């Protein structure tokens, strides 16, 4: 048995060396980029608040921005129009239930992240961070998830607990870190 194994080992060893030699040939052409140079693109907000910028906003500030830039699609006071309503929502019963911010969204940080990256629909990335905080505060306040005078900022926003936070089951736990 052992005499048969040694020639096989002799073949395996050079193959391993060859594979690692090929791996080392990756051209490594990526150019280093500084945090300052990628800051305009660095817009992910994570659920624990990582990524939230300085600044803040209140529901009162948000109501002004909303009327000017959002109501045309989402209706007055978030009641819905050509596009989804942003306020209210019956408790989720089954998949015919309408998913709303109040009855479904598990994390408040998703509001800031999504408004800043995707809204308004025709002019994404046109809002200042202050305006995004204010709109986030306004929508949370309309849904009575925060007080009407509460300020949303990097410290307060991640602490807003959404009602459906625990309404989820991870589909493939073995594939999910």
């Amino acid at each position: 048995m052992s005499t048969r194994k040694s020639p096989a080992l002799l073949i395996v060893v050079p193959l391993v060396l060859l594979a690692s030699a090929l791996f080392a040939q990756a051209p490594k052409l990526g150019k280093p980029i500084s945090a300052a140079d990628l800051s305009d693109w660095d817009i992910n907000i994570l659920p624990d608040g990582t990524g939230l910028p300085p600044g803040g906003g209140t529901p009162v500030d948000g109501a002004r921005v909303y009327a000017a830039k959002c109501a045309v699609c989402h209706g007055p006071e978030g009641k819905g129009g050509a596009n989804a309503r942003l306020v209210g929502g019956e408790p989720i019963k089954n998949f015919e239930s309408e998913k709303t911010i109040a009855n479904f969204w598990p994390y408040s940080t998703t509001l800031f992240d999504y408004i800043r990256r995707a809204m308004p629909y025709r002019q994404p990335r046109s809002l200042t961070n202050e305006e995004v905080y204010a709109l986030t505060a306004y929508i949370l306040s309309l849904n009575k998830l925060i007080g009407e005078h509460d300020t949303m900022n990097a410290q307060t926003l991640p602490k807003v607990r959404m009602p459906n936070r625990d309404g989820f089951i991870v589909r493939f736990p073995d594939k999910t870190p």
Partner: protein
Amino acid sequence: MTPRDQAKRELESLTPVAGNGLLHRRAFLRGGAMLAGAMSAYRLVPSASAQKLADDPWSLAPGAAVPDYGVRSRFEKNVVRTLSNPKAEPRTQHARTPHHLLNGTFTPNSLHFVISHAGDPDIDPEKHRLVIHGLVKQPLVFTLDTLARYPMVSRMAFVECGGNSAPMFSNEPIQASIQALHGLVSCSEWTGVPLSTLLDEAGIDPKGKWIVAEGGDAPHLSRSVPLTKALDDAMIALYQNGERVMPGNGYPMRLLLPGWEGNMNIKWVRRIQVTDQPGMTFYEARTYAPILPNGKAYRFYFIQEVKSFITHPSPGLALSGPGFYEISGIAYSGNGRISKVMVSADGGRSWAQAALQAPVHSKAFTRFRLPWRWDGGPALLQSRAWDEAGNMQPSRSELVAARGQTTKVPAVTAFTSQHYNAIQSWSIERGGEVRNVYA
């Protein structure tokens, strides 16, 4: 007796291997070309009767100039995607693949399904950048030119919208073409740079567990992907079926996650951040979180599970009279290769094993085929697929028991839920019409 008649007689003498006229998967191979000649073709219009042959005008004069970029015959102009929002109103656009008018295992680029949440961006490839940053030793930026110098890989892979086949959640079967029912899945050969190469170059911090990938489109669409998948078979795809990725599919580069939910395969990808937690982005926290009958919702339904459907015949592609047909369809699984497809013509009472077109690629369309002799009477066609991981396509009743169905018939374009992969049943009516039924 003509050779054609002889072939026909030979076919008729074959003993069916399952009910309602299903023949052995190699029946046509035994008879060779003559038997194939006896087959009825699938037709959208009745065929002309035989007549004396003569030269047609195109045979009597030189043809047109060869174009620099080929276009299909003008007679094929009806082979198109169906569009949900052709005027690009401020909402999502869907373009669905006409599976009943295609064959083989990959989808032509111009007919690949597209979902664009705010239109297709017109990206100048020289100005496009891909950034890798976050929990890495050295944040890096790549241009298309630099990526073109990396060792590349090619692979077949289907991409399927998590909401494909959503009309099948309807409590009553919706009568619509297979394009409307299952048109949000397509398959291509993708060529590009393994994402692992680029992540290794940036140097992953041991705290990194996820990547959050983002597109350069107007919504800056973003999704979180476990780092294990990113290092396994993920690719920054630059080519689709040999040419640059189409604008609707992410030009000049997209993230390809073979077998995983379409929306996660970020198109126009411009940024990948390595993180220690998922982003809980809009599309994963809200949209692609299907609600269950108990009111809870699934999160991170990454995998497009084993599935098949018969494309020939199917609604939109009627039979043109009793006789021989090839039943064929596509099967695929996000868990690997298709290992077996069984076909029934009697609503699941008896089954015959279909032939699988070789080579069978992992996480790609596999064409299955089975000869069939339709006697002109009612028939109920079904296909059921298995994958190499041992997963079996569920029946509709099994899927609905776990996932629910509607209480009233929704619009055919509605996405009531997602990740529908149950057995599809087609009813063959006496006139050859094909209907979507639940069996």
